[in-house]
């Protein structure tokens, strides 16, 4: 990204303004839509302003890991579709999409949002695998937080299909997937000496560093990931967590 636009952006920031007119700690308008696919066990579409992602959850019966014979598992994947940005290219997953998926996975897993033991069908033989797929539809920055929120929204919808020991009957549902916590993620970027919530595309491109913070409903921090090529101080981290704690509550309230 060229230096002129970064200078332009910083000139704005020095005046206390963002190029998108938001306050430094302000989120964009967020839309949640559950009407995505009736074939998914749970799905949601989230918009953060012009950023849009769809997350769908499918359940499959699989074999448990040998070291956890009575636990199901989750697999999170992210597809940064070429449709959603001029910068995304077809082909195997880029490192950015791997990071996106792994940081979403981290918050769900580490907050113990899903009771993996409840996903056990027959110990040592059969468990439910929760397959979470993130698809980006439009990238105007902060795909991370939108994806994490969409994932939680989709998981909250999940109904477990009927399984007779041989075949899964996806047309019949047996009950909901119990969630034990409600982790959301909040990203704050640092540009020069300013900290900005929910960065838009240009802010994300020109950031010095980013911190994504996963927060549960008890204000416990279950995941963090620093991004970007520059450094943060302990004071930055302190402030970024503080902003994230505040914003996380707003995000969680949007889900039914």
């Amino acid at each position, binding site marked *: 990204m060229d230096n002129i636009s970064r200078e332009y952006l910083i000139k704005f920031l020095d005046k206390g303004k963002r190029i998108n007119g938001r306050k430094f700690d302000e989120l964009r308008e967020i839309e949640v839509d559950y009407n995505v696919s009736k074939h998914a066990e749970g799905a949601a579409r989230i918009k953060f302003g012009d950023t849009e992602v769809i997350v769908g959850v499918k359940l499959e019966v699989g074999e448990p890991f040998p070291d956890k014979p009575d636990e199901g598992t989750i697999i999170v994947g992210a597809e940064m579709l070429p449709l959603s940005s001029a910068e995304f290219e077809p082909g195997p997953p880029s490192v950015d999409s791997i990071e996106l998926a792994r940081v979403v996975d981290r918050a769900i897993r*580490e907050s113990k949002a899903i009771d993996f033991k409840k996903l056990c069908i027959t110990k040592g033989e059969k468990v439910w695998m929760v397959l979470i797929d993130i698809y980006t539809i439009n990238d105007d920055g902060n795909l991370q937080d939108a994806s994490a929120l969409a994932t939680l929204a989709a998981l909250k919808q999940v109904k477990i299909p009927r399984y007779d020991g041989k075949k899964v009957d996806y047309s019949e549902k047996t009950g909901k997937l119990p969630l034990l916590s409600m982790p959301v993620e909040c990203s704050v970027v640092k540009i020069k000496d300013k900290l900005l919530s929910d960065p838009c595309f240009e802010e994300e491109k020109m950031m010095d560093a980013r911190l994504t913070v996963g927060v549960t409903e008890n204000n416990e921090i279950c995941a963090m990931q620093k991004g*970007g090529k520059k450094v943060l101080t302990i004071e930055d981290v302190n402030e970024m967590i*503080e902003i994230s704690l505040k914003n996380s509550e707003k995000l969680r309230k949007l889900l039914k």
Partner: protein
Amino acid sequence: MMVTATNAYNKRMDGRNFDELREIEAKVGVVKSADGSAMFKIGDTIAIAAVRGPRDLYPRFMQNPKGGILRCSYNMMSFSVDERIRPGPSRRSREITLVTENALMPAVDLSEFPNSVVDVFIEIVQADAGTRCAGICAASLALADAGIPMRDLVCAVSVGKVGGKILVDLNKYEEDYEDGSSDMPVAFLPRRNEISLLQLDGGMKKEEILNALELAKKSCVEILEVQRNALMGKYKNG
């Protein structure tokens, strides 16, 4: 969260204090043909790193006329853990490669090397938790050994909360501790106390995170000392 008597972690399994690092050994120049290299061992975790470059970057379209680029690769050898790891890149190793690159980047200045690349190869030979941090410590030494212009060394260590206790340099047992373990890898540029790597797996309150960061900062000073001695050890007689 309530900590009951059964899951509290009052004494570390290896007898260390909560703010005590495992034994560290560092050595530079372990890969003869490389431009710079180092071994960093902390407890039973062993990382080696080699630097090749600055050298021409191909494919040509990746070249940057304004300066060189830093390109890392982090890999665990298949036999570095109990259950064999399939050779080749995994999602985990690619993410760690990314955060390692970001952790080292602020310390190096490649503006003098347009269109070139500095490759940093990190291999984990033996793993007992904290491999990305050991890799970063080794890589930073290898970069210095290669004579790459640097603003600072990079020191990395994992801090966390195990059974309710904030502690430094988790080993595998502590990372997998049954009743609650949070792992937070941190890298510092010690000269100005700047953070270039920060991740967290697990639950912690804000105050705990800040305490853990202070502990990491303190421990990184100890790591720096070992790194410095390793560099001096190679160059004082040469």
